[in-house]
Every structure is written in structure tokens, then in C-alpha cells.
């Protein structure tokens, strides 16, 4: 949801609470208990499915746990796993590179496509609703296995892509120089979710601004540059953060398209795929756990950096 909405959501309860608290403290306490009771299912899920396993993996990341040996044989290895990542594992650094390239290319392209189509679909015309639905459709299929399989077939030597453009092209997915590109295209194609959010954001920009601008003689491009982009910047920021995190985590398409190997010659060896392969196929779960934690910290840092740049280009209504 756009940050403006988020702000409202945050503000409301804090204004409502004190009044209830000052009048009847006992009831508040009881409500508090009820609140926790209602939270229990979620808390249990969080603890059991997310928090405890995460802590477990943190512990394992300092061990040589190999998935199959009994726990009695697990040995503490200190920071060895972490050192290995950056000192002695060319495949790891390669996977980082592949993931960065994927993220840095796919995310801007996807957001650009989403914004472009959102602007086009913002005007009410006949069938606009239909088009919105159609453009959103690929996102519904999400990171599905079926889609990745279709993708494989599409980019093969005599697949849809070569046939459609009459190319005597290669099997794109089997070419180390292009395989990652096909994954990027697949990612970009699923721009529906950010598009819908952009559409909602566009609706929030007051039309008076455009009217005033056109009275002053501004053309469409300048209106877009000086009104749409600043007005939309909170939404762009939101989408950027979300898609960046999502982009770096890409797994399913790379797994299915490369048959789980990250091939050809590690061209599609995304970070999460290498992590998976290390843990489950090569029985180095301790090392894989360490990778997972570095990944978590890296994504947190990237997100923090994005937030810190936000000050310079994200305009919330009240400041402008």
C-alpha cells in the first residue's frame, strides 16, 4: 500500500488508544489479553515456522552440519563457513554477480514497464478494465513451475520466440550468454503487481495540478516530469523496495529452466539456487545456512540504502 495510506494506518490507533486507557484501565488490560489471544495463531506460526528455524539456521551456520549425519557428529567450525564464502569459493562470488546483474537489470526494466503501462491504462476508455486485467494476468501465474516450463519451450531452438521473429536463433536458454537474459525477460513480463499499485498511485494525483500546468502551457512530457513523477514518488519508492527484495530472491524460474543446476556453465546460478544446491544436493547445510544469513544481511543493507536515498527524491504531499 502507498506510504500515505500506511501513515494513516499508523496514526489512527495511537490517537484512539489514550482515551480508552484513561477511562477504564481494567478493561484495557483485558482487551490486551484478548489481543494476544487473537494474535496467538499468528505468533505460533511466526515462532514455529519462521523465528525458531531462523535461529536454528544461525546456529548451524557456524557448524559443518551436512544434513545426513546425526547431530551428535556436528562440529562447531566458527567463522569458517563465512570465510570460505569470500575467500575460497569462486562459485559463490559468481552467484553473487549473477544475482546482482539480474536484480540491476530486471528491476528497473520491470518498474519502467509497469509505470509505462500504468500511465497508458490510467485514462478511462473502452475496454480499459479488460486491458488492466490482461496486463495483470502474468503476475497471477507468479513464480510458478508451469510458467517456467512454458518459458523453456518458448526459447528453444524451434520455440515460439525464434518462430515468431523468423530467426534462425539458438536455443536461448542453452546459451551461457543469453540464458540469464531470458530469465530477465520472464521477470519483466510479470509487471502486473507494481502496475496495479502505480495505477492506484496515479489516481491519487490531483487533476487540478494537470489543469493548472496545461493552462501555463506545459506539454505532456513536462507534466509527466514535474507532476506525475514527484506525485508518484512514494509509490515508486515502495515498488522499488519491494521489487528489489523480490528480484534478488528469484529462484523458481532459474531452478526450473536450468533443471536445478544453474547451468549452462553457472550462467543462471542465482544466489538462492546456489544456496539450495549447496544445502540439499551437496550436503553442506552449515555452509548453506551461512550463505542464507549473509543474504539476509545483504538485503537488509540494500533496503536501508534505498531508504536513505529516499530522502532526496521521494516527495510526500505535505512537503512539496
Amino acid at each position, binding site marked *: 500500500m502507498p506510504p500515505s495510506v500506511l501513515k494513516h494506518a499508523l496514526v489512527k490507533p495511537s490517537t484512539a488508544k489514550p482515551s480508552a486507557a484513561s477511562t477504564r484501565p481494567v478493561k484495557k488490560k483485558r482487551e490486551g489479553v484478548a489481543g494476544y489471544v487473537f494474535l496467538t495463531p499468528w505468533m505460533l506460526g511466526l515462532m514455529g515456522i519462521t523465528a525458531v528455524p531462523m535461529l536454528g539456521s544461525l*546456529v*548451524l551456520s557456524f557448524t559443518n552440519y551436512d*544434513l*545426513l549425519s546425526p*547431530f551428535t557428529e556436528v562440529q562447531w567450525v566458527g567463522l569458517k563457513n563465512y570465510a570460505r564464502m569470500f575467500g*575460497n569459493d569462486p562459485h559463490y562470488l559468481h552467484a553473487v554477480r549473477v544475482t546482482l546483474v539480474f536484480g540491476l537489470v530486471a528491476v528497473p526494466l520491470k518498474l519502467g514497464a509497469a509505470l509505462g503501462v500504468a500511465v497508458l491504462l490510467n485514462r478511462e476508455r473502452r475496454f480499459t478494465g479488460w486491458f488492466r486485467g490482461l496486463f495483470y494476468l502474468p503476475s497471477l501465474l507468479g513464480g510458478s513451475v508451469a510458467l517456467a516450463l512454458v518459458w523453456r519451450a518458448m526459447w528453444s*531452438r524451434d520455440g515460439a520466440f525464434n518462430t515468431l521473429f523468423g530467426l534462425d536463433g*539458438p536455443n536461448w536458454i542453452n546459451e*551461457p550468454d543469453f540464458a540469464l537474459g531470458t530469465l530477465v525477460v520472464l521477470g519483466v513480463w510479470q509487471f502486473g503487481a507494481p502496475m496495479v499499485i502505480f495505477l492506484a498511485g496515479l489516481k491519487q494525483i490531483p487533476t487540478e495540478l494537470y489543469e493548472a500546468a496545461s493552462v501555463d502551457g506545459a506539454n505532456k512530457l513536462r507534466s509527466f516530469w514535474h507532476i506525475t513523477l514527484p506525485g508518484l514518488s512514494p509509490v515508486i519508492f515502495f515498488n522499488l523496495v519491494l521489487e528489489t527484495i523480490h528480484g534478488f530472491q528469484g529462484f523458481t524460474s532459474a531452478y526450473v529452466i536450468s533443471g536445478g543446476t544453474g547451468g*549452462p556453465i553457472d550462467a543462471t546460478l542465482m544466489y538462492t539456487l546456489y544456496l539450495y544446491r549447496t544445502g540439499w544436493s551437496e550436503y553442506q547445510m552449515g555452509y548453506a545456512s551461512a550463505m542464507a544469513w549473509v543474504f539476509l544481511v545483504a538485503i537488509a543493507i540494500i533496503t536501508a540504502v534505498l531508504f536513505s536515498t529516499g530522502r532526496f527524491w521521494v516527495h510526500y504531499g505535505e512537503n512539496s
Partner: protein
Amino acid sequence: MHRAAMSQGTSRRTLLLGALAAPVLAACGSKEAEQPAPMSTEPVELSIFWWGADARAKATEDALALYKTKYPFVSFKTTWQGNQGYYDKLATLAAGGNAPDIFQIDDGALSEYAERNVTLDLNPYMANKKLDVSKFPESLWKYGEVGGKLSGVPTGENTPGMIYNKQLITELGLTEPKTGMSWEDLISWAEPVYAKSGNKVYGTMDPSADYKALWMWLRQQGKELYANKAIGAAKEDLVKWFTLWKGARDRKSAPTADLIHEANGGDVTKQLVVTGTAATSFLWANQITEVQAKTKQTLGVMAYPGNPNAQWARAALYFSVARSSAKKDRAVDVINFLVNSNEVGKLWGADRGLSANLDVRKAVADGLTDATAKTAFAFETDMATKFGKAPAVPPKGHVKVRALLTTIAESVQYGKADAAAAADQFLKEANAALGA
């Protein structure tokens, strides 16, 4: 698992691990039913897990049904799936303490599981005659030993086989390749196929990324793929191997890298004899029935090139019993039945290799009707007269080495690395993986 950690009262770290990690990873495990007395007639359910195609699933279910008619109180919980992802699933099950009572495994993974004590040592069962391998060739059942422990029972014997498109070769007016021809001869033989087929079909698959082929080629020069916990080949050997196949690709005897990559995935439907892009595929001899079912062309099978005495009595697959199983005795009895029963042998044919029990093998051979199955049997029977000494089962780390060879050989095939650099990289990374 965590119970074991507690009782032995080892270091505090282990305790911490047990306390923190075990509930996570082993949470749903250890719902061990009360152990039934050996060979009791209490109703018992055994879980059994394998990979394979539909035909294997049906044959296996039928075989288990036969066991059930003998022992009606035994029931089976069968799970099977395709090859891809099988070991991921098995590892996850084992890690969670839910390893199936009986599971299928191959020599690529046997050491990984045996050295980590997932598999039950079957030697005691062999000693007290609960497991009868007396009719097996000795070298075959010994190929189930890892570090002195009998970790798997071979379901059958199998050898790598080069499957070729017999029909196409005849149509192009070429002679068929023959067991015993050298690797260089194969490449020369393959050269005219491309031009004669109107630039459609390459003569031979390039198996430089296939550890089976490399291993065979090394053995023909008196070396092994593995020497203890290291790679048995020297840099010059690997350079020679990569260069041999680079020559084949340059001469158009072997296909382009993208086609080779497609087949390297191992999927039967993607093999080049099936897709019609090459006249040979480097597989397992018994896979000819599976591959033949996917193509209308008539296929043949021969040994990998070079002297066939580099081959050995190799277990096609094994059945292993999980050490954590609560029904070990019954599980061993089921395996004993599956590998020694004539009826099961007939149901399975050559699907899990040529029956390990020689009496069963003979009975199966006598009853064969399918032409392809006959070919497979004839081939394997002939190979058995040529076998050399068996090496040790590939060591722990083999899975990673196999994947490394694929990646690194492919980098040569795609022209991204030269043979010398590839050989260096392979030796460095493979030895590191084996030493770990």
C-alpha cells in the same frame, strides 16, 4: 536424533545444537512405533521410496503385492518420483528423521549416505542368512560395500552403454559401431554422419562432461577417476580428454555445445538419439528399453568405446535400509525377496539392471519376449565375460565432483575456457570437494 545427543552428554555446543536445531529439522521425525519382534505377524507398514518412470512404478507395486500375498500382515507405503529432485527429497526426509525404511540409491550417492551412517550395515544379516546373496557374482554384491559395511544390496547389474541409432546408420549406408572400437575410431566413424544426413544429425554425442565416460577412458589407461579421497587423473589426462572432444566438435563429429548441454541434464526424453540430433547417446545399457520407448527409430547398444575390460560388474541400483528404521528385519526380508525371487525378476526384466541373482537372471532371460529387452540382456551377458576388476564405490563428495565436471567440461564446449585452464580448475575444485 536429539535424544541421542542428550543421552551421550557430549559438549555443551552439541547440546545447544540439539536443543535449538533438532526440534527444527527433526521435528516431525521419530514417531517410531514400538519395535515389533523380529518376523512377528503383527500388522506392519513399510515405507519404500524410489525414482523411475511409470513402468518401474507398476512393476514395483506388482512385486510388493507378491510379497504381500505371502505375508498379508505387511503393507507398503510406496512413494516414487522422477529422477530429478529425488536425492533432494531423500536428503530432506533423512534429515528430518523420516528416512523411508527401504530406499533406492545408486553408486553415485551410496557413499554419501553410507559414510554418514544413514544406511544400515547389512553384514550381520548376510552372516545370519537373513539376506542371501550367495547366488550373486561376488564382485557385484561387494560393490555395495562402503568402508567394509554392506550399505546397499544391488538390485541388478548394469554397465554404461552407448546407445546408437541403428536404423539411421543403416539408412546412411554406414557400418554399425562395435564394442571395442577406440574413442578416436568412434569420432572418425561419426564424422560423415553430419554431411550424409543433410546437416541434420551429428555422428556422436560428446560425453566429455559425463563422469562415466571419463572414468572408463581413464581406466583404459590404467588410471581411476578416484584414488582414495582425490582425483586419480593428472592434469595431462584431463587436457587430453577435453582436447579429444574439442577435436570431435571441430570436425562436426559431435554436436554444438547447446545440444550437448540439453542432453547433459540426463533427462531421457532430451537425449540426442531421442531428439534425433545425434546418432549416439552415452547412457546405461539397460536404459535402451526406456529410450526405445521414446523413439520410432530402431536402436542398438554397445559398450563405451575402448577396451571393454575397463567395465566392471556394476550395480545398476541398490536397495538400502535406513539405520533409523524401526522395522529393519522386515525391511531386509523384503529386499531379500525382491532380489531373489524369480517372479519379481520376470516382472522387472532389465529395468533395475540384469537380475543380480544369477539363477533369477537365467529364468528371466529364458522368458523374455520383448526384442529390446532381449538386446539389453544379450549385451549385458556378453559384457559379463569381459569385466575387469571393480574399483571402490565413488567416495563422499562424488555428487559435487560430477556436477563440477559437467560445468567445467561445458565451459570448454562453449569455448569459454581452454582445456588446460579447465583441467586445472577441475582438479583444484574436485580435490577440495573430496577432501572436505
